C-alpha cells in the first residue's frame, strides 16, 4: 500500500489516486448499450483526501428520434452547506451529443439542511446557431457559443458511444456546470490500460482525454462494454457507484482537513 505522500507524488489526476476504491470496485456485469436508455450514478470524491464521498452525480439517458434527453442530478456537501443541481438537457444526434437546450435548477442549503432562498436559481438555455440564449430568473442574455456546444454532463454520455481511435480528435465548446461557456476544447483517445479491481480481477479500460480553456486535463475511463466507470480531472473524481445517491443522503459536511 502506498503512503498518502507517495500517492500524492505520482497519481494526481489518475486512477491510482483512489487505490482503495479501485481495489474494492466490482465492475458491473450487466450488458450495456450506450446508445440506449440508461441511468448511471457516480460518487464524487476529491484527490488523495480522506474525506470520502462528497456527493453524487446521476445521469439518466433516454434516446429520442433526434438525439437524446439527459436528466442530471447532483448533490455536493460543501464545508458550510449543500448544493443540489438538477438539469434536463436535449442533445443532438451527433458524435458528442451537442446541446440543443438545457433547463437547470440550483439550490443551496445551509448546514441545517434548510434551502437558502436567496441562493436558488432556475436557468434555461436554448442553442441557436453559434450562440446560446439564456433565461435566468426572468433576465435574458445571448452569448456566443461556437458549435458544437457540448455540456460537461453530455461528455459522460459521448465517450461511451465513441469508437476508440487514436487518430481522431473532437473539437468543441464546453458548457460547464450548466452555464459556463469554455471554448477551444479537445477530446482525444489516448489508449488502454488494465487495473486490478475487487478480487484481483483485471479490468480493461479505454481512456479519453479532454483539454482546453478553463479545464484541467480530464480523463474518462470506459470499460469494454462502453460504460463510463471513472472520470478524473485534477482533484476531482467521479467514480461509478450505483449506491452513491443513497449514500449521499443526510451528509452535511464536505472535505475540510487541509488548511489552505
Amino acid at each position, binding site marked *: 500500500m502506498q503512503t498518502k505522500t507517495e500517492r*500524492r*507524488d*505520482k*497519481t*494526481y*489526476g*489518475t486512477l491510482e489516486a483512489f487505490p482503495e476504491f479501485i481495489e474494492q470496485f466490482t465492475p458491473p456485469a450487466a450488458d450495456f448499450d450506450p446508445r440506449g436508455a440508461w441511468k448511471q450514478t457516480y460518487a464524487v470524491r*476529491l484527490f*488523495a*483526501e480522506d474525506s470520502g464521498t*462528497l456527493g453524487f452525480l446521476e445521469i439518466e439517458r433516454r434516446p429520442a428520434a433526434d438525439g437524446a434527453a439527459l436528466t442530471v442530478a447532483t448533490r*455536493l456537501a*460543501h*464545508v*458550510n*452547506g*449543500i*448544493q443540489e443541481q438538477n438539469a434536463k438537457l436535449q442533445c443532438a444526434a451527433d458524435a458528442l451529443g451537442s446541446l440543443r437546450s438545457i433547463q437547470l435548477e*440550483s439550490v*443551496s442549503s*445551509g*448546514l441545517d439542511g434548510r434551502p*437558502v*432562498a*436567496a*441562493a*436558488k*436559481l432556475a436557468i434555461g438555455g436554448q442553442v441557436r446557431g453559434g450562440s446560446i440564449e*439564456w433565461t*435566468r*430568473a426572468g*433576465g*435574458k*442574455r445571448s*452569448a456566443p457559443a461556437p458549435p458544437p456546444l457540448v455540456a460537461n454532463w453530455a461528455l459522460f454520455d459521448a465517450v461511451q458511444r465513441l469508437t476508440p481511435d487514436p487518430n481522431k480528435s473532437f473539437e468543441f465548446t464546453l458548457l*460547464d*456546470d450548466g452555464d*459556463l*461557456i*469554455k471554448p*477551444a476544447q*479537445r477530446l*482525444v483517445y*489516448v489508449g488502454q490500460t488494465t487495473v486490478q479491481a475487487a478480487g484481483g480481477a483485471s479490468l480493461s479500460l479505454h481512456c479519453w*482525454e479532454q*483539454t482546453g*480553456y*478553463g*479545464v*484541467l*486535463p480530464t480523463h474518462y475511463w470506459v470499460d469494454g462494454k462502453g460504460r463510463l466507470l471513472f472520470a478524473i480531472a*485534477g*482533484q*476531482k473524481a467521479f467514480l461509478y457507484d450505483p449506491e452513491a445517491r443513497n449514500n449521499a443522503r443526510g451528509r452535511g459536511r*464536505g*472535505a*475540510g482537513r*487541509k*488548511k*489552505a
Partner: protein
Amino acid sequence: MKRRDFVCTGILGAPALAIRTARAAAAVPPPSFLFVIADQLSMDAVTAHGNRFVRTPNLDRLARAGVSFRDSYTTYPLCSPARSSMFTGRMPSETGVISNGLPIRAGIPNLGQWLGARGYETVYAGKWHVPNSYTGDIPGFSVLPGGFTGQGHMGDAAVSRACQAWLHNRSSQSPFLLVASLLQPHDICAWVSSHTREAPWERMAEIPAPLPPIPANFEYDQTEPRAMRSERRPKWSEKQWRYYLWSYYRHVEMVDAEIGRLLDALEDTGRANNTVVIMTSDHGEGSGHHQMVLKNYLYDEAAKVPLLVSWPGRTPAGKQDTAHLVSGIDIAPTICDYAGVAAPPEVTGRSLRPLVEGRNVQWREMVASEVARGGRMVRTSECKYIVYPNDPVEQLFDWKTDSGETRNLASDSRHALALEAHRRLLKDWEGRLKLAPNAAKGRVRG
C-alpha cells in the same frame, strides 16, 4: 445563513457622524460593490497584462472597463494575512494575522461590520480564512454556502452560483457589498505537491499548442536570504517547468470563467451601472520565476497581485496604472470612499479613488510587504529591498534595470546610499505600525 448581530458603537464607530455630508447634499445614491478575490493569481497571468499563454476574457472585461493597477502588492504573500489586510485596511502585523488560520484581533472592524453598520447589505460567499477557510459565521456578513477547504475545482462553481442566484433574487434597492471569494488558481498547490519529486510524473496531457516558455528570470540571485529559498523545491526539466506553467494557466482560466458568471449576473440584473467591481488576489504564484513555485516569499511573482477597479461609465476604460505603488491595505479605504463613509480609524491604507479618477494627488513613495519569518519588503520607484531578521543577507534590486530581481546590489558600494535609504524607509514605516502583540517580535530593525 447566519448574520452576526452587532452594536453600532465601539469599534464600529458612530455611523451618523461617519457618513459624509457631501453625499447627502448631492443626493447621489451610494454604489454597491462586488469584491472578487482570487487565490494565488499572479499579476502576469492575465491576458490583459500581456500573457499570450492564458485566456482570461473575463478578467480582461474588467481591465477594459476600468483601471488595472500594475504596481499592486499584497501585504503578505500568504492567504490569511493578506485577507486580513483587504478587510481591515491594515498590515498583518497590526491585524495579528501573521500566519494562516489566525483571526483578526479584537477591536479592528472588518469591512462587513463597518459597511453593515452604515446601511449596506453585506454578503459573503467563499473562502474567508481568518481564521476558518469556509464557515457560516463571518462577523458582519450574511454568508452564502459553498466551498471546499483547499479544493477550488468544485467549490468555486458553487460560490459563483450562489452569488449569481443572490444577485438574481435580490429585490432590495439598498446598496450592497457582495464578496465572492474564489479559491482558484490555488489548486496549483496540490498540483505542485503531486509533482515535486524527480520521479516520473503521470503522463502529460496531449497538448496541440506549444507549452509556455520558462520565464526570463528563471535564474536567480544565488546569495539570497535563506528564507527566500523555501519554495524552490522542484528539480524539474525544462519541459516539466513549462508543463507546470501550462497547468497553472488552466487553473487561472477556471477562476476567470467563474468571474464571468458573476459579471454576467451583474449585467443581467441591471446592477452593473451602479456597482463598483474590485478584483484582486491574496498573493501570486512563483510561475518558475527564480525557479520558484507557490508563495510566501517576497519576489514579485508571489508579492505582486492584480488589482482591478471597474465601474462602467465612471472609471476610465482600459487604463493601466504603472505610476502608483498600491497595496492590499488600500482596498477597504477605497470601498469606504466610494460608499461615502469614513474609513475605520487607524486604517493605514489609502483610497485608490483619486488615482482611478485620474486626480493629481500626492501618493506614497513606497509600499511594504511582510512575510513569514519576519521578512520585509520595500518597493520604491527606484529599487526593491528585501530583508529578514537574523539573516545577514539583504537584497537590493535596481527597478529601472532589473525588475526581474536577479542582480543583488546590496553589497555593491556604488549603491550604498540607496541601500541605506531603503533601510531607513523600512525602519520609519515599521515605526508607524501599531503592532499586534503577537507580531512585535517579528520586527526586522530598530
